[in-house]
């Protein structure tokens, strides 16, 4: 595709609803699936779709994210031409400011896009788990001669009020957009994935930036303004796995989904690989009394106890006589001996001392455990918390 299409990846999100998981890192950098970070799915989609120029817009606690992306090598985007460019907010001669909304983030980087002089701009965000061929989206965009194409997915009608809902004619042309409608007319939810003709978008971004009352958001401001003007807008129907991992429970569910046979292809697909920055840990070591089923585990780990329905990242230890059930254990965490964990998320490098028991009821949100929680809980309960 060359520079016909430039992707702008919004990765500045704070992800407040992920609680302690995003205390120090941006939501797209949150670890996922035993090895990856959430943004890997979108970046791999770009790589697999043949998009070679990607601007990654970062803002909130970007260190981890910047380090993870580096020069883009894991996605084969360490290119002389195009490749990945990280775009944090900046100041220039006439000032500058933080990105105040999704549209503003692109507006502030108009010069970046202009230097490639693309026909199309793909706007995506780095906080969803899905595998999508953007080439097909772009193909439809061209075929329908659209100015804007928005990717949509069918959601259960009773949940439609949580999304931006698109109302379309039979040929998928959009005539109405309702942001989180009380009484949704259908169930086609916007995935926050847009293709724009760059010349069209550019004008709207400039107009929107001038408007004092605008929140400078694609869903709230730019898309409605385009609709109002009768721009040629189409919906692109996506079917397949798609999950917004915006809350602790959806984060936990999406990790658990990886353990299901039907979602094997999410990370095990040979034709749509998910790339990430890899490390040099030695292979996984299982001890003589280890038991591990319905789980995934990564390199550098030592397992002596029982692991069931869990996701283990690299360099993790599970001590003997311990049970880890329905849990997510991030890199470098050490689970002592005779520990019982159920429905918890253990954060990076947390040490769970011997004998600790922590279980969360199925109807409650999984518990995020870091060093502080370990200290508090164990001080209060003497190591027995249910």
């Amino acid at each position: 595709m060359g520079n016909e299409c430039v992707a702008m990846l919004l990765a500045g999100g704070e992800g407040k609803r992920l609680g302690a998981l995003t205390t120090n890192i941006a939501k797209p950098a949150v670890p996922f699936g035993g090895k990856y970070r959430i943004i890997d799915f979108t970046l791999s989609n770009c790589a697999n779709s043949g998009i070679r120029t990607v601007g990654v817009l970062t803002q909130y606690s970007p260190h981890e994210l910047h380090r993870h992306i580096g020069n883009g090598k894991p996605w084969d985007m360490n290119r002389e031409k195009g490749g990945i460019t990280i775009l944090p907010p900046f100041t220039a001669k006439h000032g500058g400011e933080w990105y105040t909304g999704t549209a503003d983030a692109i507006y502030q980087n108009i010069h970046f896009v202009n230097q490639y002089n693309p026909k199309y701009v793909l706007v995506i965000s780095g906080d969803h788990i899905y595998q999508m061929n953007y080439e097909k989206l772009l193909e439809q965009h061209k075929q329908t001669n659209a100015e804007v194409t928005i990717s949509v997915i069918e959601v259960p009608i009773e949940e439609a009020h949580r999304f931006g809902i698109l109302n379309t004619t039979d040929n998928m042309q959009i005539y109405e957009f309702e942001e989180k409608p009380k009484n949704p007319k259908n169930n086609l939810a916007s995935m926050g994935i847009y293709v724009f003709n760059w010349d069209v978008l550019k004008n709207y971004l400039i107009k929107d930036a001038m408007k004092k009352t605008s929140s400078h958001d694609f869903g709230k401001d730019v898309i409605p303004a385009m609709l109002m003007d009768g721009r040629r807008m189409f919906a692109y129907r996506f079917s397949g796995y798609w999950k917004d991992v915006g809350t602790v429970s959806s984060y936990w569910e999406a990790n658990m989904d990886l353990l299901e046979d039907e979602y094997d292809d999410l990370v095990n697909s040979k034709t749509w690989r998910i790339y990430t920055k890899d490390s040099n840990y030695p292979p996984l070591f299982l001890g003589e009394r280890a038991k591990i089923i319905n789980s995934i585990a990564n390199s550098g780990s030592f397992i002596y106890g029982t692991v069931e329905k869990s996701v283990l990242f690299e360099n993790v230890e599970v001590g003997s006589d311990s049970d880890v059930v329905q849990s997510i254990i991030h890199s470098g965490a050490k689970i002592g001996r005779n520990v019982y964990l159920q429905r918890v998320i253990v954060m990076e490098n947390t040490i769970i001392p011997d004998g600790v028991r922590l279980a969360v009821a199925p109807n409650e949100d999984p518990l995020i455990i870091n060093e502080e929680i370990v200290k508090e809980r164990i001080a209060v309960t003497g190591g027995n918390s249910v």
Partner: protein
Amino acid sequence: MSRLMGLINLEHESQHFHELTYSRSSASIPFAGRYRLIDFPLSNMVNSNIDEVALFIHNKFRSLLDHLGTGASWDLDRTHGGLFLLPIDGSNPMDMTKGDLRFFRHNQDYFLRSPSTHVLISGSQFIANTNYRKAFEYHLERDADVTLITTRINRFLPEHRPLFRIEADDLGWVQQITNDQANPVVFTGVYIINKDLLLALVNDCIAYNRDNFFINGIMDHLSSLKVQSYQFDGPCAFINSIESYYRHNMNLLTEKHYRELFYEQDFVKTKISNNPPVKFKERAAVTNSILSTGCIIDGNIEKSILFRGVEVKKGAVIKNSIIMQRCTIEEDVYLENVILDKDVQITKGQKLIGSTQKPFVIAKRQVV
């Protein structure tokens, strides 16, 4: 200032690995779930702050070259220095050089151009995780011409038979290099030599139509050279046959040995592959084993080493075996004491049993 360059010389190494070296040089034999033998000397050199490493490549090097790439996995993709692959030039019919001397002669410019003053030479069959910084300091301190890295063997094994034994005086000066099997101090094949001396000895050997730099250049001149010995005390192995290969892989299933080799020093570096984590399904039962990324397990595995991307279907049993990259083990297969090379497929219900002394080896890409 004194500075080291690295040279990996594979020319006179044992190639007695049968099926495992049908299509690759012994240096690129897969080891310990994700490595190749050559990863050890390469990582050790890089960890010794060496940033220019040359490799004499001879034959069956497709797999080796694929593995090494630009050297990026070892941080050897440099503007200055980095990885140098040195083949021989077969175009001159008048060329009479032999053995590894041929490589030295044909690539003399590489050594002349390098700003390094010293060369660390290693093969690929001495497996250890270490660095040679101290040995180099020692070499400079003693003002030696050559420093041989030795190690002391506690238990004599068949793979030790071909190794040279080192006899040194109290100050570490080497007096004799022998085949005396009763001497437990063996030469690891790793040595440091002054670059100018190396080039002079190479020319001398070639003038006398010799074929082995170490034997003819160093051993034969032992009395006129100042040769030191420096003892390496860490965990190590010599791998020069299928039996030693199998034994040392299996040895890593003892957690202590595994941690000693991989966790007490810097990590051994290898080519990055980007496979997903290991997936354990409903019927997986895996104990005392090492598994690499990309494996999908639904069977029984005991005391075995699985490389990247191995699939084990339900009902399959694998014991005391080494299963290399991308093998598929179908349902109800039974494997014991076997080595499967890469891309082997064992079809449903097959039973293969080797002995612990002589594992059953299946060559690459077979369907059994």
